[in-house]
């Protein structure tokens, strides 16, 4: 986990969204919790059927169950609307949380966005 130097003043939450044909890459920064998870979820926006949404969590300093729930809801939306969700958890606390909750068994997890297919 990349802990900010001063935990009182972490990076403010923000989401970078890039759309490239059928692939949307969503990269949140900062901390995902009850206050910010809805923003992460909403950032995905409209997805084309057959498309792929890569959620890159490697820049997060923190995520809790609010983030897990957002990922599970996106996964459900993808299954219903016919697009694929791919999660890039990095190797810190986000990956451990995905593993311990077995969310990582349900959604597609890769080491880097390039690793898809």
């Amino acid at each position, binding site marked *: *986990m990349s802990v900010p130097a001063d*935990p009182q003043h*972490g990076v403010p939450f923000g989401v970078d969204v890039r759309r490239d044909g059928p692939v949307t890459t969503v990269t949140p920064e900062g*901390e995902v919790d*009850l206050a910010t998870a809805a923003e992460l979820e909403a950032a995905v926006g409209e997805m084309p059927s057959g498309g792929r949404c890569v959620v890159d969590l490697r820049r997060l300093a923190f995520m809790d169950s609010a983030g897990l*729930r957002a990922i599970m809801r996106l996964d459900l939306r993808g299954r219903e609307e016919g697009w694929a969700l791919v999660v890039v958890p990095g190797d810190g*606390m986000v990956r451990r*949380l995905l593993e311990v909750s077995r969310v990582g068994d349900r959604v597609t997890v890769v080491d880097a966005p390039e690793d898809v297919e």
Partner: protein
Amino acid sequence: MSPASRGASHPLRRTVPAVPACVAGLRADAAGYLAAAGAPPELTEAVRLAVSEAVSNVILHAYPPDDDPGPVHLVVEVSRGTVHVTVADEGRGIAPRFDSPGAGLGLPIIANVATRLELGPAGEAGTELRMSFDGLAA
């Protein structure tokens, strides 16, 4: 006694209104307090996650959704190698709820990262969740 462990001998105490915006500040305060006490990163990370879940539970479940938010109380203290964290509210008490906005993840996550978890009534009304974490060099 090192300056760090002296600094840790006063408990951290916070009371704020239970709204989503308070979660980040409370877990950062807890993490900052433990870092100052010389806690290893894994321990600080466990406490950050547990505080975040416990405070989120108070926000989501303790007070009726339409009321003004009630308070959430946080206490962190260190004693003989163990970190003790208490998150308390003055709300309606724990009940199972099918319409839960969560998904039954908060308590198991806390039980997973804490050494021990204790749940009981807080004063006249509300819930007190005490968590302890071993792993601090005494």
